C-alpha cells in the first residue's frame, strides 16, 4: 500500500498543477471575465480614455444565445456531428469486431491501413479530400461534392475518414483483453460468431464505446479545421459555418473579444451538457442491470 511521504508527491505534482493553473484555470477565468464585459465608447471614441471597459453582466451571453447566425451554425454542426458520430463509431465498432473474429485474412494489412489516416493532420486530410472533391480533378464525375446540399456530407466524410481508425483501435484493444474462455464457453453452448458479438463482446465493450462517444462529441462540436481548410475550395462554406469559426471571426477578424468569449462559453456549456447528458442516458441503460 502506498504510504505518506511528506512533501515528495506535492513536489512531483507541482509542474502539472502549475501548468493547469496557467493554461487552463486562468484562461477559463479570463474567458468568463471577458464575457461579462464590453467596451464603451465615449464621444467620438478618439483619444486616450475614450474607450472604457464596462461590466455588462449577462448581456453578451444573452446576445450569443439568441444570435441567429450562431444557431444556423449549430444546426449545421448538429447535422454534421450526428452523421459523423453514427457513421464513424459504427464503422469503428464493425471493423474492430471483424478484426477480432477468427475468420479474417489480411487483418494486419487492413488494421494498419484503416489506422493510417490517424497520422494525417486534419488540415492535410481536408486538403487531400478538397482536391478529390474539386470539379476539375475529382475521379468521380457527375457529383458536385461542394454544392450547398452536399458539402455537409463531404465534410462528414473527411471526419469519418480521419477518425474511424483511432476509435477502431481503442475498441479493438479492448476486445483483445477479453479472456478467450468466455468465447469457448459460449461456443460449447452452441453460440455462433454473431451471437458472441452481440451477447458477449458488445456488452463488455460498452464502457469503451461510451468513452469514445463522449470524446467524439467534444471533438465534433468544436469542428474548425475541416471547414476552414475547405473554404478556399468553395464559396458555399461561410466564415461562420461552425460555431467555433464564428468565435474565431469575432475574436480575430471583427475584433469583438467580448462576444467571442461569450460564444465560446456557450459552446463549452453545450458540449458539457451533451457529454454529461449522454453519459447519464447510457449509464442508466448500460449499468442499470449490473
Amino acid at each position, binding site marked *: 500500500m502506498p504510504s505518506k511521504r511528506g512533501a515528495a508527491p506535492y513536489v*512531483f505534482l507541482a509542474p*502539472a498543477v502549475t*501548468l493547469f493553473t496557467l493554461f487552463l484555470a486562468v484562461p477559463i477565468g479570463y474567458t468568463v471575465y471577458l464575457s461579462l464585459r464590453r467596451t464603451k465608447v465615449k464621444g467620438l471614441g478618439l483619444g486616450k480614455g475614450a474607450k472604457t471597459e464596462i461590466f455588462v453582466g449577462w448581456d453578451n451571453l444573452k446576445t450569443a444565445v439568441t444570435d441567429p447566425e450562431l444557431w444556423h451554425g449549430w444546426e449545421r454542426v448538429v447535422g454534421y456531428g450526428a452523421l459523423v458520430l453514427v457513421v464513424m463509431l459504427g464503422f469503428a465498432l464493425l471493423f474492430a469486431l471483424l478484426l477480432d473474429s477468427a475468420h479474417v485474412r489480411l487483418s494486419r494489412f487492413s488494421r494498419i*491501413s484503416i489506422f493510417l489516416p490517424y497520422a494525417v*493532420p486534419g488540415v492535410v486530410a481536408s486538403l487531400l479530400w478538397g*482536391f478529390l472533391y474539386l470539379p476539375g480533378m475529382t475521379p468521380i464525375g457527375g457529383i458536385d461534392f461542394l454544392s450547398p446540399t452536399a458539402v455537409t456530407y463531404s465534410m462528414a466524410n473527411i471526419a469519418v475518414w480521419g477518425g474511424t481508425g483511432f476509435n477502431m483501435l*481503442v475498441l479493438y*484493444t479492448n476486445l483483445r483483453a477479453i479472456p478467450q474462455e468466455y468465447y469457448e464457453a459460449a461456443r460449447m453452448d452452441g453460440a455462433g460468431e454473431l451471437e458472441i458479438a452481440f451477447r458477449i463482446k458488445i456488452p463488455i465493450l460498452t464502457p469503451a464505446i461510451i468513452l469514445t462517444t463522449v470524446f467524439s462529441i467534444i471533438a465534433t462540436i468544436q469542428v474548425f479545421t475541416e471547414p476552414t481548410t475547405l473554404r478556399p475550395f468553395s464559396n458555399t462554406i461561410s466564415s461562420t459555418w461552425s460555431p467555433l469559426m464564428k468565435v474565431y471571426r469575432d475574436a480575430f477578424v471583427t475584433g469583438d473579444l467580448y462576444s467571442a*468569449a461569450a460564444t465560446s462559453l456557450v459552446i463549452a456549456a453545450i458540449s458539457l451538457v451533451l457529454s454529461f447528458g449522454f453519459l447519464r442516458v447510457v449509464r442508466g441503460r448500460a449499468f442499470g442491470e449490473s
Partner: protein
Amino acid sequence: MTTQRDRSRIQEALTVGRSRHAAEAPRRPLGLAPTGLLILGAIYCLLPVSWVLVSATKSPGELFTLSTFQPGTGLFSNLESLNAYRGGVFWLWMLNTLIYAGGGALLSTLVSAVSGFALAKYRFPGRNLIFNILIGGILVPAVVLAIPQYLLFSKLGLADTYWAVLLPQILHPYSIYLARIYAAAAIPDSLLEAGRIDGATEFRLLRRVALPLMIPGMVTIFLFQFVAIWNNFLLPFIMLGDDHKFPLTVGLYTLLAAGANQPSLYNLIITGALLSIIPLIALFLTMQRYWRTDLSSGAVK
C-alpha cells in the same frame, strides 16, 4: 487499488497481439464477407494517401490532363519549386513542426509520468481532489482556452513566439491518467520500500526506480502526444503571425488559402502535403508495437 488486475491486463495486452492467433489451432474457414468489408475499409482509407502520392509526380500541365491515378513526370520539378518557394520556407515549417511536436511531447511525457507516479504510488491529503481536477481538464473544449491563452500570451509579449505554441500543449490530462494507470501496474511497491530502507531519497527513487520502469508506457504517451501536437491547427493558427514560425499545418493552410484560385500553386500544395505526411507515416510504421491504446483499458471500466 486494482494494481494486480491492471498489471496482469497490461501484461496480457502485451502478449496477446502475437500469440493469440497462433494459439487458435483449428482454423475456422475463411469468412469472405468480413475479409471483404475490411479490405474495402482499407482501400477507402488508402485512397487519398495514394492519390497524393501519384499527384505529386504530376507536372502542372499533367495535373489536369492525366487521369487521376496515372503517374506523371514532374516529381523533381515539383520538389524544386517547393524548395524555391519563399526561400525554402517549407523546410522551416517542417523543422518548426519537429520542434513543437518533439519538444512538446517530450515535456508532456515527463510531466505526465512524474504526476502519474505521484498519484499512483503515494497517499496524501488532496490526492483525489488534485486527480479529479486535473482529469476534469479532459472535458474542457479547446475553444474556451485558445482566445484567452492568446490574449494572456500577448500581454506577456509571448504571442507569436515558439513558447506560445509549446507551453499550452505540455499539460495533457489524458496522458496523466494513462501514466497513473501505467505506474500503478508497472512499479512494485516492494521495490520502492526496498529503496527507502537503503536510504534513497524520494527523488532518487523517481529517477532510478520509477521512471526506468515506466519507459514503455512513456513511449506510448510520447507518440500519441507527438501526433496530437503535429496535427494541431487551431492553437498555432491563433498564436502565430510570422510564417517563419509556422508549423506545417498552418503553413500548408496559408499556401492553400493563397493558391486556391491559382492552379499554378496546386503542385506546390500537393507536393507539400505529401512531404508533410511522410514523417508521421514512417514513425507510425516503425514504432508499431508502441501504438497501444490498452494502457487505458484497465480503467475504462
